[in-house]
Protein backbone atom coordinates (compact mmCIF):
# COMPACT_ATOMS: atom_id res chain seq x y z
CA UNK A 1 0.00 0.00 0.00
CA UNK A 2 1.19 3.50 -0.84
CA UNK A 3 0.29 5.15 2.42
CA UNK A 4 2.77 4.05 5.09
CA UNK A 5 0.13 4.54 7.81
CA UNK A 6 -1.71 1.64 6.19
CA UNK A 7 1.15 -0.72 6.94
CA UNK A 8 -0.53 -1.58 10.22
CA UNK A 9 -3.57 -2.76 8.34
CA UNK A 10 -1.57 -5.06 6.13
CA UNK A 11 -0.42 -6.92 9.23
CA UNK A 12 -3.97 -8.25 9.39
CA UNK A 13 -4.10 -11.10 6.92
CA UNK A 14 -7.55 -10.79 5.35
CA UNK A 15 -7.33 -7.02 5.01
CA UNK A 16 -4.43 -6.95 2.59
CA UNK A 17 -6.69 -5.69 -0.17
CA UNK A 18 -9.02 -3.70 2.10
CA UNK A 19 -8.99 -0.24 3.68
CA UNK A 20 -9.12 0.37 7.45
CA UNK A 21 -6.47 0.46 10.18
CA UNK A 22 -5.89 -2.22 12.76
CA UNK A 23 -4.36 -2.25 16.21
CA UNK A 24 -3.46 -5.71 17.38
CA UNK A 25 -6.36 -7.80 16.24
CA UNK A 26 -9.04 -5.10 16.28
CA UNK A 27 -9.90 -3.06 13.26
CA UNK A 28 -11.54 0.30 12.77
CA UNK A 29 -14.22 0.55 10.14
CA UNK A 30 -15.52 3.90 9.01
CA UNK A 31 -17.99 4.27 6.21
CA UNK A 32 -19.20 7.61 4.87
CA UNK A 33 -22.17 7.62 2.53
CA UNK A 34 -24.71 9.99 1.00
CA UNK A 35 -28.26 9.46 2.20
CA UNK A 36 -31.31 9.02 0.03
CA UNK A 37 -33.76 11.96 0.09
CA UNK A 38 -35.67 11.75 3.37
CA UNK A 39 -33.28 9.03 4.52
CA UNK A 40 -32.05 10.96 7.56
CA UNK A 41 -35.56 11.28 8.91
CA UNK A 42 -36.30 7.57 8.39
CA UNK A 43 -33.01 6.55 9.97
CA UNK A 44 -33.72 8.60 13.08
CA UNK A 45 -37.08 6.91 13.33
CA UNK A 46 -35.52 3.46 12.85
CA UNK A 47 -32.87 3.97 15.52
CA UNK A 48 -35.13 5.79 17.99
CA UNK A 49 -34.82 2.99 20.53
CA UNK A 50 -31.08 2.70 19.92
CA UNK A 51 -29.43 -0.67 20.22
CA UNK A 52 -31.52 -1.97 23.07
CA UNK A 53 -33.74 -5.00 23.54
CA UNK A 54 -33.94 -7.31 20.53
CA UNK A 55 -31.58 -5.17 18.47
CA UNK A 56 -28.93 -5.36 21.19
CA UNK A 57 -29.39 -9.13 21.44
CA UNK A 58 -29.13 -9.65 17.70
CA UNK A 59 -26.06 -7.47 17.45
CA UNK A 60 -24.49 -9.32 20.39
CA UNK A 61 -24.90 -12.57 18.46
CA UNK A 62 -22.37 -11.38 15.91
CA UNK A 63 -19.85 -11.60 18.75
CA UNK A 64 -17.10 -9.57 17.09
CA UNK A 65 -18.44 -5.99 17.16
CA UNK A 66 -16.97 -3.85 19.97
CA UNK A 67 -19.12 -0.83 19.20
CA UNK A 68 -20.90 0.89 16.38
CA UNK A 69 -22.44 4.30 15.80
CA UNK A 70 -24.32 6.24 13.16
CA UNK A 71 -23.79 9.96 12.74
CA UNK A 72 -26.04 11.92 10.42
CA UNK A 73 -24.36 15.13 9.30
CA UNK A 74 -23.97 17.66 6.50
CA UNK A 75 -27.49 18.97 6.77
CA UNK A 76 -29.04 15.49 6.83
CA UNK A 77 -27.47 14.52 3.51
CA UNK A 78 -24.74 12.14 4.71
CA UNK A 79 -24.11 9.49 7.33
CA UNK A 80 -21.04 8.11 9.05
CA UNK A 81 -21.12 4.50 10.16
CA UNK A 82 -18.22 3.87 12.52
CA UNK A 83 -17.32 0.64 14.25
CA UNK A 84 -14.51 -1.34 15.85
CA UNK A 85 -14.47 -5.07 15.52
CA UNK A 86 -12.38 -8.22 15.75
CA UNK A 87 -10.63 -9.54 12.68
CA UNK A 88 -11.77 -8.21 9.34
CA UNK A 89 -15.27 -7.51 8.13
CA UNK A 90 -15.07 -9.42 4.88
CA UNK A 91 -14.27 -12.74 6.52
CA UNK A 92 -17.85 -13.05 7.71
CA UNK A 93 -19.70 -10.93 5.16
CA UNK A 94 -21.12 -13.98 3.37
CA UNK A 95 -22.24 -15.44 6.70
CA UNK A 96 -24.06 -12.20 7.51
CA UNK A 97 -25.70 -12.29 4.10
CA UNK A 98 -26.96 -15.78 4.84
CA UNK A 99 -27.87 -15.50 8.51
CA UNK A 100 -28.92 -11.86 9.05
CA UNK A 101 -29.53 -10.32 5.60
CA UNK A 102 -32.52 -8.23 6.72
CA UNK A 103 -30.65 -6.73 9.68
CA UNK A 104 -27.74 -5.71 7.46
CA UNK A 105 -30.05 -4.27 4.81
CA UNK A 106 -31.89 -2.31 7.50
CA UNK A 107 -28.67 -0.63 8.63
CA UNK A 108 -27.67 0.55 5.19
CA UNK A 109 -30.74 0.78 3.02
CA UNK A 110 -31.01 4.56 3.36
CA UNK A 111 -27.53 4.92 1.88
CA UNK A 112 -27.42 6.06 -1.71
CA UNK A 113 -26.36 3.31 -4.06
CA UNK A 114 -26.52 0.55 -1.44
CA UNK A 115 -26.78 -2.56 -3.60
CA UNK A 116 -28.19 -4.92 -0.93
CA UNK A 117 -26.41 -7.61 1.06
CA UNK A 118 -27.04 -10.25 -1.62
CA UNK A 119 -25.55 -8.21 -4.44
CA UNK A 120 -22.27 -9.49 -5.85
CA UNK A 121 -21.19 -5.82 -5.68
CA UNK A 122 -21.67 -5.53 -1.91
CA UNK A 123 -17.98 -5.81 -1.02
CA UNK A 124 -16.96 -3.29 -3.64
CA UNK A 125 -19.66 -0.88 -2.48
CA UNK A 126 -18.44 -1.09 1.11
CA UNK A 127 -14.83 -0.56 0.08
CA UNK A 128 -15.87 2.44 -2.05
CA UNK A 129 -17.62 4.12 0.90
CA UNK A 130 -14.95 3.20 3.42
CA UNK A 131 -12.54 5.86 4.67
CA UNK A 132 -9.35 4.74 6.38
CA UNK A 133 -8.74 6.49 9.71
CA UNK A 134 -5.75 8.78 10.02
CA UNK A 135 -4.93 7.25 13.38
CA UNK A 136 -6.51 4.52 15.45
CA UNK A 137 -6.05 3.73 19.15
CA UNK A 138 -7.27 0.77 21.13
CA UNK A 139 -6.73 0.33 24.88
CA UNK A 140 -6.91 -3.45 24.58
CA UNK A 141 -5.75 -4.29 21.05
CA UNK A 142 -5.31 -8.00 21.77
CA UNK A 143 -8.70 -8.56 23.43
CA UNK A 144 -11.65 -9.68 21.35
CA UNK A 145 -15.28 -9.02 22.29
CA UNK A 146 -15.50 -12.63 23.40
CA UNK A 147 -12.34 -12.24 25.53
CA UNK A 148 -13.91 -9.23 27.27
CA UNK A 149 -17.23 -10.99 27.87
CA UNK A 150 -15.43 -14.00 29.26
CA UNK A 151 -13.26 -11.86 31.54
CA UNK A 152 -16.33 -10.04 32.88
CA UNK A 153 -18.04 -13.35 33.54
CA UNK A 154 -14.95 -14.68 35.33
CA UNK A 155 -14.73 -11.51 37.40
CA UNK A 156 -18.31 -11.76 38.59
CA UNK A 157 -17.94 -15.47 39.33
CA UNK A 158 -14.80 -14.78 41.31
CA UNK A 159 -16.54 -11.94 43.13
CA UNK A 160 -19.43 -14.21 44.09
CA UNK A 161 -17.00 -16.84 45.33
CA UNK A 162 -15.07 -14.33 47.46
CA UNK A 163 -18.29 -12.86 48.84
CA UNK A 164 -19.28 -16.30 50.10
CA UNK A 165 -15.94 -16.94 51.74
Amino acid at each position, binding site marked *: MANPSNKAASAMPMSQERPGLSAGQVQEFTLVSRLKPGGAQRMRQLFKGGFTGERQKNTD*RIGTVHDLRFIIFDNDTRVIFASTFDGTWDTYIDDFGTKIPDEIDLLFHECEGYPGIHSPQIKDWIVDQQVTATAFYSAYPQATVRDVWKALKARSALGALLDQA
Partner: protein
Amino acid sequence: MLIPAVPVLDVSDIQATVLRPRPSPYRGEYVVLRIDDAAQGREMLRRMIPRVAPADEWWLPTLPGWLGIAFTHEGLKALGVPQESLDSFPVEFRQGMAARAAILHDFGDDAPPNWEYPFGTADMHVALAIYANDEQNLTKVLERARQSHADLPHISVVYRMQFGELPGGRNPFGFRDGLHNPHVEGSVAEGAVTPTRNAYEAAIKAGEFIMGYPDESGATATSPVPEDLRHNGTFLAFRKFHMDVAAFRKYLRSVASSPAEEELIAAKMVGRWRSGAPLVLAAESDDPKLGADQNRNNDFSYQTDMKGLKCPFSAHMRRVNPRDALKDDIVAVNLHHFLRRGTNFGLPLPDGVLEDDGAERGGVFLLIGAHLRQQFEFVQSQWATDGNFISHGTEQDPLIGNNEGDGVFTIPQRPVRRRLHGLPRFVTVSGGEYCFMPGLRALGWLAALKS
Protein backbone atom coordinates in the same frame (compact mmCIF):
# COMPACT_ATOMS: atom_id res chain seq x y z
CA MET B 1 -47.08 -28.83 -2.83
CA LEU B 2 -44.29 -27.20 -4.75
CA ILE B 3 -41.11 -29.20 -4.39
CA PRO B 4 -37.97 -27.18 -5.13
CA ALA B 5 -36.08 -28.67 -8.03
CA VAL B 6 -32.86 -30.39 -7.07
CA PRO B 7 -30.24 -30.06 -9.76
CA VAL B 8 -29.10 -33.45 -10.85
CA LEU B 9 -25.40 -33.28 -11.35
CA ASP B 10 -23.88 -34.15 -14.67
CA VAL B 11 -21.62 -36.71 -13.01
CA SER B 12 -20.31 -37.96 -16.37
CA ASP B 13 -18.65 -34.57 -16.85
CA ILE B 14 -17.33 -34.18 -13.28
CA GLN B 15 -13.97 -35.75 -12.43
CA ALA B 16 -14.13 -38.87 -10.27
CA THR B 17 -11.66 -37.36 -7.78
CA VAL B 18 -14.25 -34.74 -6.80
CA LEU B 19 -16.93 -37.17 -5.64
CA ARG B 20 -15.45 -40.63 -5.42
CA PRO B 21 -14.13 -41.69 -2.00
CA ARG B 22 -10.66 -43.23 -1.98
CA PRO B 23 -10.77 -47.04 -2.29
CA SER B 24 -10.18 -49.10 0.81
CA PRO B 25 -7.45 -50.16 1.08
CA TYR B 26 -5.88 -47.60 -1.22
CA ARG B 27 -2.60 -47.06 -3.04
CA GLY B 28 -1.78 -44.04 -5.07
CA GLU B 29 0.55 -41.43 -6.36
CA TYR B 30 0.60 -37.68 -6.84
CA VAL B 31 2.56 -36.46 -9.84
CA VAL B 32 3.38 -32.85 -10.69
CA LEU B 33 4.24 -31.82 -14.23
CA ARG B 34 5.78 -28.67 -15.67
CA ILE B 35 4.86 -27.51 -19.16
CA ASP B 36 7.52 -25.59 -21.05
CA ASP B 37 5.70 -25.54 -24.35
CA ALA B 38 2.00 -24.78 -24.67
CA ALA B 39 1.45 -26.92 -27.79
CA GLN B 40 3.07 -29.95 -26.13
CA GLY B 41 1.05 -29.27 -22.99
CA ARG B 42 -2.15 -29.39 -24.99
CA GLU B 43 -1.02 -32.50 -26.85
CA MET B 44 -0.34 -34.18 -23.52
CA LEU B 45 -3.78 -33.12 -22.35
CA ARG B 46 -5.47 -34.45 -25.52
CA ARG B 47 -3.92 -37.86 -24.88
CA MET B 48 -4.65 -37.72 -21.17
CA ILE B 49 -8.37 -36.86 -21.42
CA PRO B 50 -9.62 -40.37 -22.28
CA ARG B 51 -7.73 -41.60 -19.18
CA VAL B 52 -9.37 -39.12 -16.79
CA ALA B 53 -12.15 -40.84 -14.87
CA PRO B 54 -15.62 -39.31 -14.63
CA ALA B 55 -17.66 -39.50 -11.43
CA ASP B 56 -20.33 -41.87 -12.79
CA GLU B 57 -21.70 -44.09 -10.03
CA TRP B 58 -19.07 -42.68 -7.71
CA TRP B 59 -20.78 -44.28 -4.72
CA LEU B 60 -20.10 -47.81 -6.04
CA PRO B 61 -16.63 -49.21 -5.28
CA THR B 62 -16.22 -50.46 -8.84
CA LEU B 63 -13.18 -48.61 -10.18
CA PRO B 64 -9.84 -50.38 -9.72
CA GLY B 65 -7.96 -47.14 -10.22
CA TRP B 66 -8.54 -43.64 -11.50
CA LEU B 67 -6.76 -40.54 -12.64
CA GLY B 68 -7.63 -36.97 -11.74
CA ILE B 69 -6.03 -33.90 -13.25
CA ALA B 70 -5.86 -30.32 -12.01
CA PHE B 71 -4.00 -27.15 -12.94
CA THR B 72 -2.39 -24.31 -11.07
CA HIS B 73 -2.75 -20.75 -12.35
CA GLU B 74 0.80 -21.01 -13.67
CA GLY B 75 -0.21 -24.24 -15.37
CA LEU B 76 -3.17 -22.61 -17.14
CA LYS B 77 -0.82 -19.86 -18.30
CA ALA B 78 1.63 -22.46 -19.58
CA LEU B 79 -1.18 -24.09 -21.59
CA GLY B 80 -1.91 -20.80 -23.30
CA VAL B 81 -5.24 -19.94 -21.64
CA PRO B 82 -6.26 -16.42 -22.78
CA GLN B 83 -5.46 -13.55 -20.42
CA GLU B 84 -9.11 -12.57 -19.99
CA SER B 85 -9.83 -16.02 -18.72
CA LEU B 86 -6.74 -16.17 -16.48
CA ASP B 87 -7.73 -12.85 -14.91
CA SER B 88 -11.27 -14.06 -14.19
CA PHE B 89 -10.14 -16.65 -11.64
CA PRO B 90 -10.52 -15.78 -7.94
CA VAL B 91 -7.62 -13.88 -6.43
CA GLU B 92 -6.54 -16.65 -4.04
CA PHE B 93 -6.14 -19.08 -6.93
CA ARG B 94 -4.26 -16.52 -9.03
CA GLN B 95 -1.88 -15.83 -6.16
CA GLY B 96 -1.35 -19.46 -5.18
CA MET B 97 -1.23 -20.97 -1.71
CA ALA B 98 2.27 -19.77 -0.79
CA ALA B 99 1.26 -16.12 -1.30
CA ARG B 100 -1.61 -16.66 1.13
CA ALA B 101 0.70 -17.75 3.98
CA ALA B 102 -0.31 -14.86 6.26
CA ILE B 103 -4.00 -15.75 5.96
CA LEU B 104 -3.33 -19.46 6.39
CA HIS B 105 -0.98 -18.96 9.37
CA ASP B 106 1.76 -20.75 7.50
CA PHE B 107 4.48 -19.29 9.71
CA GLY B 108 7.66 -20.74 11.19
CA ASP B 109 8.32 -24.31 10.09
CA ASP B 110 5.09 -24.19 8.06
CA ALA B 111 6.28 -21.21 5.98
CA PRO B 112 6.50 -21.67 2.19
CA PRO B 113 10.31 -21.18 2.04
CA ASN B 114 10.54 -24.44 4.02
CA TRP B 115 8.28 -26.34 1.62
CA GLU B 116 9.45 -29.16 -0.62
CA TYR B 117 10.10 -28.39 -4.25
CA PRO B 118 8.08 -27.60 -6.39
CA PHE B 119 5.46 -26.33 -3.92
CA GLY B 120 5.29 -22.57 -3.70
CA THR B 121 7.27 -22.15 -6.94
CA ALA B 122 6.15 -21.34 -10.48
CA ASP B 123 7.25 -24.83 -11.60
CA MET B 124 4.10 -26.57 -10.41
CA HIS B 125 1.74 -26.62 -13.41
CA VAL B 126 -0.26 -29.82 -13.55
CA ALA B 127 -1.16 -32.08 -10.66
CA LEU B 128 -2.17 -35.66 -11.26
CA ALA B 129 -3.86 -37.66 -8.52
CA ILE B 130 -3.99 -41.40 -9.02
CA TYR B 131 -6.00 -43.51 -6.60
CA ALA B 132 -6.04 -47.29 -6.96
CA ASN B 133 -7.07 -50.33 -4.98
CA ASP B 134 -3.69 -52.08 -5.35
CA GLU B 135 -0.15 -51.71 -6.62
CA GLN B 136 -0.89 -53.36 -9.95
CA ASN B 137 -3.76 -51.04 -10.83
CA LEU B 138 -1.75 -48.07 -9.65
CA THR B 139 1.07 -49.04 -12.01
CA LYS B 140 -1.41 -49.45 -14.86
CA VAL B 141 -2.93 -45.98 -14.46
CA LEU B 142 0.49 -44.40 -13.86
CA GLU B 143 1.85 -45.97 -17.02
CA ARG B 144 -1.06 -44.66 -19.09
CA ALA B 145 -0.51 -41.19 -17.68
CA ARG B 146 3.22 -41.44 -18.41
CA GLN B 147 2.57 -42.49 -22.00
CA SER B 148 0.65 -39.29 -22.61
CA HIS B 149 3.83 -37.21 -22.22
CA ALA B 150 6.78 -39.64 -22.44
CA ASP B 151 7.76 -38.49 -25.96
CA LEU B 152 7.12 -34.80 -25.28
CA PRO B 153 10.46 -33.26 -24.24
CA HIS B 154 8.88 -30.03 -22.98
CA ILE B 155 6.76 -31.80 -20.39
CA SER B 156 8.75 -32.67 -17.27
CA VAL B 157 7.85 -34.62 -14.20
CA VAL B 158 8.96 -32.35 -11.34
CA TYR B 159 7.51 -34.27 -8.41
CA ARG B 160 6.20 -37.71 -7.54
CA MET B 161 5.06 -39.09 -4.25
CA GLN B 162 3.50 -42.41 -3.43
CA PHE B 163 0.97 -42.94 -0.71
CA GLY B 164 -0.94 -45.85 0.69
CA GLU B 165 -3.26 -46.97 3.41
CA LEU B 166 -1.70 -47.70 6.79
CA PRO B 167 -2.70 -50.85 8.69
CA GLY B 168 -6.28 -50.71 9.91
CA GLY B 169 -7.06 -47.61 7.85
CA ARG B 170 -5.41 -45.48 10.55
CA ASN B 171 -3.51 -42.25 10.06
CA PRO B 172 0.09 -42.03 11.35
CA PHE B 173 -1.15 -40.80 14.75
CA GLY B 174 -3.10 -44.04 15.00
CA PHE B 175 -6.62 -42.79 14.39
CA ARG B 176 -9.12 -44.04 11.83
CA ASP B 177 -9.70 -41.14 9.50
CA GLY B 178 -11.52 -40.08 6.38
CA LEU B 179 -14.79 -40.85 8.12
CA HIS B 180 -16.79 -37.82 7.14
CA ASN B 181 -17.63 -35.91 3.99
CA PRO B 182 -20.52 -33.57 3.28
CA HIS B 183 -23.49 -34.82 1.26
CA VAL B 184 -23.60 -33.11 -2.11
CA GLU B 185 -27.17 -32.43 -3.14
CA GLY B 186 -28.21 -34.11 -6.38
CA SER B 187 -25.02 -36.15 -6.67
CA VAL B 188 -26.59 -39.57 -6.25
CA ALA B 189 -28.96 -41.18 -8.75
CA GLU B 190 -32.51 -41.67 -7.57
CA GLY B 191 -32.94 -45.08 -5.96
CA ALA B 192 -29.21 -45.71 -5.59
CA VAL B 193 -28.15 -47.53 -2.46
CA THR B 194 -25.57 -45.47 -0.57
CA PRO B 195 -24.33 -45.49 3.02
CA THR B 196 -26.95 -44.22 5.45
CA ARG B 197 -26.91 -40.50 5.84
CA ASN B 198 -26.52 -38.85 9.18
CA ALA B 199 -30.04 -37.77 10.14
CA TYR B 200 -28.73 -34.50 11.60
CA GLU B 201 -27.08 -33.34 8.43
CA ALA B 202 -28.84 -31.79 5.48
CA ALA B 203 -27.43 -32.16 1.98
CA ILE B 204 -25.31 -29.20 0.90
CA LYS B 205 -26.12 -27.39 -2.35
CA ALA B 206 -24.03 -28.73 -5.21
CA GLY B 207 -22.77 -25.26 -6.17
CA GLU B 208 -20.65 -25.22 -3.01
CA PHE B 209 -18.55 -27.99 -4.52
CA ILE B 210 -19.04 -27.89 -8.27
CA MET B 211 -19.49 -24.86 -10.52
CA GLY B 212 -22.57 -24.75 -12.70
CA TYR B 213 -25.16 -25.34 -9.99
CA PRO B 214 -26.77 -23.10 -7.34
CA ASP B 215 -24.76 -22.80 -4.12
CA GLU B 216 -25.95 -22.20 -0.56
CA SER B 217 -26.53 -18.50 -1.26
CA GLY B 218 -28.62 -19.36 -4.32
CA ALA B 219 -25.97 -18.10 -6.73
CA THR B 220 -24.41 -20.00 -9.62
CA ALA B 221 -20.76 -19.29 -10.43
CA THR B 222 -20.22 -16.63 -13.11
CA SER B 223 -16.44 -16.88 -13.16
CA PRO B 224 -13.95 -17.99 -14.28
CA VAL B 225 -14.88 -17.36 -17.89
CA PRO B 226 -15.82 -18.79 -20.29
CA GLU B 227 -18.56 -21.08 -19.08
CA ASP B 228 -17.08 -23.89 -21.19
CA LEU B 229 -14.06 -23.79 -18.90
CA ARG B 230 -15.81 -23.52 -15.55
CA HIS B 231 -18.85 -25.78 -15.96
CA ASN B 232 -18.53 -28.87 -13.75
CA GLY B 233 -15.16 -27.66 -12.54
CA THR B 234 -14.00 -26.98 -9.00
CA PHE B 235 -10.98 -25.95 -6.97
CA LEU B 236 -8.83 -27.93 -4.63
CA ALA B 237 -6.39 -27.02 -1.95
CA PHE B 238 -3.52 -29.52 -1.96
CA ARG B 239 -1.84 -29.73 1.47
CA LYS B 240 0.98 -32.05 2.39
CA PHE B 241 1.76 -32.54 6.08
CA HIS B 242 4.57 -34.22 7.93
CA MET B 243 3.29 -35.76 11.15
CA ASP B 244 5.57 -35.95 14.18
CA VAL B 245 4.13 -39.04 15.82
CA ALA B 246 6.90 -39.29 18.41
CA ALA B 247 6.22 -35.74 19.58
CA PHE B 248 2.52 -36.57 19.87
CA ARG B 249 3.19 -39.66 21.98
CA LYS B 250 5.78 -37.90 24.11
CA TYR B 251 3.43 -35.03 24.80
CA LEU B 252 0.62 -37.37 25.82
CA ARG B 253 3.02 -39.22 28.13
CA SER B 254 4.07 -35.94 29.74
CA VAL B 255 0.55 -34.75 30.57
CA ALA B 256 -1.12 -38.06 31.48
CA SER B 257 -0.56 -40.24 34.51
CA SER B 258 -1.67 -43.53 32.93
CA PRO B 259 -2.00 -45.12 29.49
CA ALA B 260 -5.79 -44.82 29.78
CA GLU B 261 -5.48 -41.11 30.42
CA GLU B 262 -3.15 -40.76 27.43
CA GLU B 263 -5.83 -42.33 25.28
CA LEU B 264 -8.49 -40.03 26.71
CA ILE B 265 -6.45 -36.88 26.11
CA ALA B 266 -5.59 -38.02 22.58
CA ALA B 267 -9.29 -38.62 21.90
CA LYS B 268 -10.15 -35.20 23.37
CA MET B 269 -7.70 -33.61 20.91
CA VAL B 270 -9.11 -35.47 17.93
CA GLY B 271 -12.80 -35.60 18.88
CA ARG B 272 -12.86 -39.33 18.20
CA TRP B 273 -11.23 -42.38 19.73
CA ARG B 274 -8.70 -44.32 17.72
CA SER B 275 -11.43 -46.60 16.34
CA GLY B 276 -13.29 -43.60 14.95
CA ALA B 277 -15.97 -43.66 17.65
CA PRO B 278 -17.00 -40.03 18.26
CA LEU B 279 -16.68 -38.67 21.80
CA VAL B 280 -20.21 -37.29 21.64
CA LEU B 281 -21.51 -40.87 21.45
CA ALA B 282 -18.79 -42.54 23.52
CA ALA B 283 -17.58 -40.08 26.12
CA GLU B 284 -15.89 -42.44 28.57
CA SER B 285 -14.01 -45.02 26.56
CA ASP B 286 -13.43 -46.25 23.02
CA ASP B 287 -16.18 -48.25 21.35
CA PRO B 288 -14.60 -50.04 18.38
CA LYS B 289 -17.96 -51.40 17.17
CA LEU B 290 -19.33 -47.88 16.98
CA GLY B 291 -16.14 -46.66 15.32
CA ALA B 292 -16.39 -49.27 12.59
CA ASP B 293 -20.10 -48.76 11.92
CA GLN B 294 -20.39 -46.21 9.12
CA ASN B 295 -24.11 -45.92 9.75
CA ARG B 296 -23.48 -44.75 13.31
CA ASN B 297 -20.06 -43.16 13.57
CA ASN B 298 -21.32 -39.87 12.14
CA ASP B 299 -24.82 -40.05 13.52
CA PHE B 300 -24.57 -37.34 16.13
CA SER B 301 -25.29 -33.71 16.88
CA TYR B 302 -23.47 -31.33 19.23
CA GLN B 303 -26.78 -30.23 20.74
CA THR B 304 -26.31 -32.86 23.45
CA ASP B 305 -22.85 -31.50 24.21
CA MET B 306 -23.12 -27.72 24.06
CA LYS B 307 -20.76 -27.33 27.02
CA GLY B 308 -18.10 -29.44 25.35
CA LEU B 309 -17.92 -31.85 28.29
CA LYS B 310 -17.78 -34.85 25.96
CA CYS B 311 -16.08 -33.41 22.89
CA PRO B 312 -14.06 -30.26 23.67
CA PHE B 313 -14.88 -27.14 21.63
CA SER B 314 -11.23 -27.15 20.62
CA ALA B 315 -11.10 -30.78 19.42
CA HIS B 316 -9.83 -31.07 15.85
CA MET B 317 -13.01 -32.67 14.53
CA ARG B 318 -15.33 -30.15 16.18
CA ARG B 319 -13.28 -27.24 14.88
CA VAL B 320 -12.99 -28.22 11.23
CA ASN B 321 -16.58 -29.44 10.99
CA PRO B 322 -18.65 -27.83 13.73
CA ARG B 323 -21.90 -29.34 12.41
CA ASP B 324 -24.63 -27.71 14.54
CA ALA B 325 -22.32 -26.59 17.38
CA LEU B 326 -22.35 -22.95 16.21
CA LYS B 327 -26.02 -22.68 15.46
CA ASP B 328 -26.57 -19.83 17.92
CA ASP B 329 -23.84 -17.75 16.27
CA ILE B 330 -23.96 -15.63 13.14
CA VAL B 331 -22.02 -18.10 11.09
CA ALA B 332 -23.43 -19.97 8.12
CA VAL B 333 -21.67 -23.29 8.56
CA ASN B 334 -22.86 -24.52 5.16
CA LEU B 335 -20.66 -21.93 3.47
CA HIS B 336 -17.59 -23.50 5.04
CA HIS B 337 -17.55 -27.12 3.93
CA PHE B 338 -15.26 -28.90 1.52
CA LEU B 339 -14.94 -32.43 0.24
CA ARG B 340 -11.94 -34.09 1.82
CA ARG B 341 -9.79 -36.66 0.05
CA GLY B 342 -7.22 -37.57 2.65
CA THR B 343 -4.33 -39.96 2.00
CA ASN B 344 -1.42 -41.05 4.17
CA PHE B 345 2.19 -41.71 3.32
CA GLY B 346 5.15 -43.34 5.03
CA LEU B 347 5.32 -46.27 7.41
CA PRO B 348 3.77 -46.12 10.85
CA LEU B 349 6.08 -45.44 13.80
CA PRO B 350 6.06 -48.79 15.66
CA ASP B 351 3.79 -48.89 18.71
CA GLY B 352 5.33 -47.65 21.90
CA VAL B 353 8.24 -45.82 20.25
CA LEU B 354 8.68 -42.34 21.71
CA GLU B 355 11.79 -41.26 19.81
CA ASP B 356 11.54 -39.91 16.28
CA ASP B 357 13.11 -42.26 13.72
CA GLY B 358 13.59 -39.48 11.18
CA ALA B 359 11.28 -41.18 8.68
CA GLU B 360 8.88 -39.24 6.49
CA ARG B 361 5.27 -39.90 7.35
CA GLY B 362 2.14 -37.86 7.18
CA GLY B 363 -0.86 -37.02 5.07
CA VAL B 364 -1.81 -35.32 1.87
CA PHE B 365 -5.23 -33.73 1.69
CA LEU B 366 -7.19 -32.62 -1.33
CA LEU B 367 -9.74 -30.16 0.05
CA ILE B 368 -12.24 -29.67 -2.72
CA GLY B 369 -14.79 -26.90 -3.16
CA ALA B 370 -15.98 -24.12 -5.44
CA HIS B 371 -15.01 -21.31 -3.02
CA LEU B 372 -11.44 -21.66 -1.72
CA ARG B 373 -11.69 -18.40 0.22
CA GLN B 374 -14.91 -19.21 2.08
CA GLN B 375 -14.08 -22.86 2.47
CA PHE B 376 -10.44 -23.93 2.91
CA GLU B 377 -9.11 -20.46 3.79
CA PHE B 378 -11.95 -19.70 6.20
CA VAL B 379 -11.68 -23.03 8.00
CA GLN B 380 -7.89 -22.77 8.19
CA SER B 381 -7.77 -19.14 9.40
CA GLN B 382 -10.88 -18.93 11.61
CA TRP B 383 -11.36 -22.42 12.95
CA ALA B 384 -8.03 -24.28 12.81
CA THR B 385 -5.55 -21.54 13.73
CA ASP B 386 -7.67 -19.30 15.96
CA GLY B 387 -9.87 -19.85 18.99
CA ASN B 388 -12.00 -16.72 19.14
CA PHE B 389 -15.01 -18.36 17.48
CA ILE B 390 -15.28 -20.67 20.50
CA SER B 391 -14.26 -17.96 23.02
CA HIS B 392 -10.84 -19.60 23.37
CA GLY B 393 -8.76 -16.54 22.52
CA THR B 394 -5.85 -17.49 20.28
CA GLU B 395 -5.93 -21.21 21.10
CA GLN B 396 -5.37 -23.26 17.95
CA ASP B 397 -6.33 -26.73 16.79
CA PRO B 398 -4.32 -29.04 19.08
CA LEU B 399 -3.44 -31.36 16.21
CA ILE B 400 -3.01 -29.27 13.06
CA GLY B 401 -2.53 -25.84 14.69
CA ASN B 402 0.71 -24.00 14.15
CA ASN B 403 1.86 -24.36 17.77
CA GLU B 404 5.50 -23.79 18.53
CA GLY B 405 5.82 -25.32 21.95
CA ASP B 406 3.52 -22.71 23.43
CA GLY B 407 0.16 -24.12 22.40
CA VAL B 408 -2.73 -24.57 24.80
CA PHE B 409 -5.62 -27.00 24.69
CA THR B 410 -8.74 -26.53 26.79
CA ILE B 411 -10.72 -29.53 27.98
CA PRO B 412 -14.06 -28.49 29.51
CA GLN B 413 -14.85 -30.56 32.59
CA ARG B 414 -16.47 -30.19 36.00
CA PRO B 415 -15.92 -28.62 38.47
CA VAL B 416 -13.14 -26.76 36.59
CA ARG B 417 -11.84 -27.06 33.06
CA ARG B 418 -8.46 -28.60 32.44
CA ARG B 419 -5.99 -26.67 30.33
CA LEU B 420 -2.93 -28.28 28.80
CA HIS B 421 0.06 -26.07 28.07
CA GLY B 422 3.22 -26.28 26.02
CA LEU B 423 1.77 -28.01 22.97
CA PRO B 424 4.46 -28.44 20.33
CA ARG B 425 3.90 -28.66 16.59
CA PHE B 426 2.61 -32.13 15.77
CA VAL B 427 2.02 -31.45 12.10
CA THR B 428 4.22 -29.46 9.71
CA VAL B 429 3.09 -28.22 6.32
CA SER B 430 5.61 -29.44 3.78
CA GLY B 431 3.88 -28.18 0.68
CA GLY B 432 0.67 -26.99 -0.82
CA GLU B 433 -0.99 -25.34 -3.77
CA TYR B 434 -4.34 -24.28 -5.14
CA CYS B 435 -5.48 -26.11 -8.25
CA PHE B 436 -8.40 -25.87 -10.63
CA MET B 437 -9.97 -29.22 -11.46
CA PRO B 438 -12.02 -28.78 -14.65
CA GLY B 439 -14.87 -30.93 -15.87
CA LEU B 440 -14.14 -33.37 -18.67
CA ARG B 441 -15.56 -31.24 -21.49
CA ALA B 442 -13.59 -28.30 -20.10
CA LEU B 443 -10.42 -30.39 -20.40
CA GLY B 444 -11.33 -30.72 -24.06
CA TRP B 445 -11.74 -26.93 -24.28
CA LEU B 446 -8.26 -26.47 -22.82
CA ALA B 447 -6.73 -29.03 -25.17
CA ALA B 448 -8.32 -27.31 -28.18
CA LEU B 449 -6.89 -23.85 -27.38
CA LYS B 450 -5.02 -22.21 -30.24
CA SER B 451 -1.68 -20.53 -29.75
